[in-house]
């Protein structure tokens, strides 16, 4: 009988351990599920902006607004173009009328005439969401309505957003705004509906001078990635630690 007691104890202990293990520990994951859990290793979208090439035509802003159904005549925009005019007295004159939607057709900055001989430097800076690697706007969302996709784009779930506005406050770049129609937080998506189908973002396509480019950082043959890797590029507000993924060629320290 002693052997059957030992057998009983053995069975009891093994059974106890087996029962304490959750069933999920034995779940077999499909390769796709494993891939999803460790991240998509094929794509990481990034933006490259060449400030010198930008002439301030504003076609990018127009295209963005129409493509993404951002109310055309309201003072909100997912992307915009800023003008910087620096004069000999060291002052920066900065403006972005209508987000640059209608382009820059007058030399007047905020109604001020600036004589050409006073200008030391002047240029246009297109801005949009930096699709940060560590997006502050996502961290602060109390309901999980904004998130980063595996290919690095930060999106807003319009069905889940409660419109509290924390993310709008948290973004160091001011790229988020409250959508007047949907009543939710709104931001640049890099035209997610286009780039996932192999098209260029609307602003990139509309830019006549190639000042805006979109690339895949994980593809080393991508010309945009090549430029980011081999040329002198800068990012905006690196000190915030959000690791922005919009890179600028010809950036000036006055651009914040």
């Amino acid at each position, binding site marked *: 009988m002693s052997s059957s007691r030992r057998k009983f104890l053995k069975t009891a202990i093994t059974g106890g351990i087996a029962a304490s293990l959750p069933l999920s520990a034995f779940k077999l994951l499909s390769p796709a599920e494993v891939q*999803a859990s460790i*991240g998509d290793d094929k794509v990481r979208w990034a933006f490259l902006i060449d*400030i*010198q*090439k*930008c*002439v*301030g*035509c*504003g*076609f990018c802003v*127009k*295209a963005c607004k*129409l*493509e*993404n159904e951002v109310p055309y005549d309201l003072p909100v925009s997912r992307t915009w173009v800023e003008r910087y*005019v620096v004069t000999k007295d060291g002052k920066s004159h900065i403006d972005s009328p209508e987000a640059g939607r*209608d*382009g*820059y*057709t*007058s*030399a007047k900055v905020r109604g001020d005439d600036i004589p*050409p001989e006073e*200008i030391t*430097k*002047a*240029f*246009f800076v297109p801005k949009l969401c930096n699709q940060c690697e*560590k*997006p502050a706007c*996502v*961290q602060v969302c109390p309901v*999980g*309505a*904004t*998130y*980063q*996709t*595996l290919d690095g784009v930060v*999106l807003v*779930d*319009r*069905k*889940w957003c409660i419109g509290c506005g924390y993310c709008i406050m948290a973004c160091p770049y001011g790229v988020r705004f409250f959508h007047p129609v949907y009543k939710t937080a709104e931001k640049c*998506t890099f035209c*997610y*509906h*286009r780039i*996932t*189908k192999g*098209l260029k973002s*609307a602003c990139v*396509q*509309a830019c*006549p*001078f190639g000042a805006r480019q979109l690339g895949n950082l994980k593809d080393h043959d991508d010309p945009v990635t090549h430029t980011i890797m081999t040329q002198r590029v800068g990012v905006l507000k690196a000190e915030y630690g959000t690791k922005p993924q919009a890179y600028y060629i*010809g950036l000036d320290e006055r651009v914040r």
Partner: protein
Amino acid sequence: MKNHAWRPLAVVIGAVALLLLVRANVVPSDFGVNGENFTYGFHRKGSIDDWKAVQIKYKGREYCRECHEEKVTENESSPHKVIECENCHGPAIEHPDNPEKLVVDRSRGLCLRCHAFLPYPQSHRSEMPAIDPDEHNPDQACADCHNPHNPNLEAM
């Protein structure tokens, strides 16, 4: 145990059960960590498909070429080849079904986006062929003299 201990406990259990019930019904089943981690990837997975389903409105030059081959070819031999058709003609969306006709922006403002002179040496803007809009035929439409598809100053 007495009733005064059991009653509040029943209320608490009931409240928790109700919360769990409501949560199970209201929170979508695809809600969870769908990105790289909880901090940045906690969301409803269907939202990604919502964004992918947005309608494409700017179709691009090749779409225009399918029917307007002649115009596109003419444009491609000119300095204006860098400009997308839809920048001036407006987004095609589902043209020719919807809209049947595109509204062309023929305003001076459209041309002045690039061709109003601005003295900005660090920008390619100052290198553009440019005019002073107040001096250069201020009351006339640009297209009266210039062909937007193939602007050729020498042929004028």
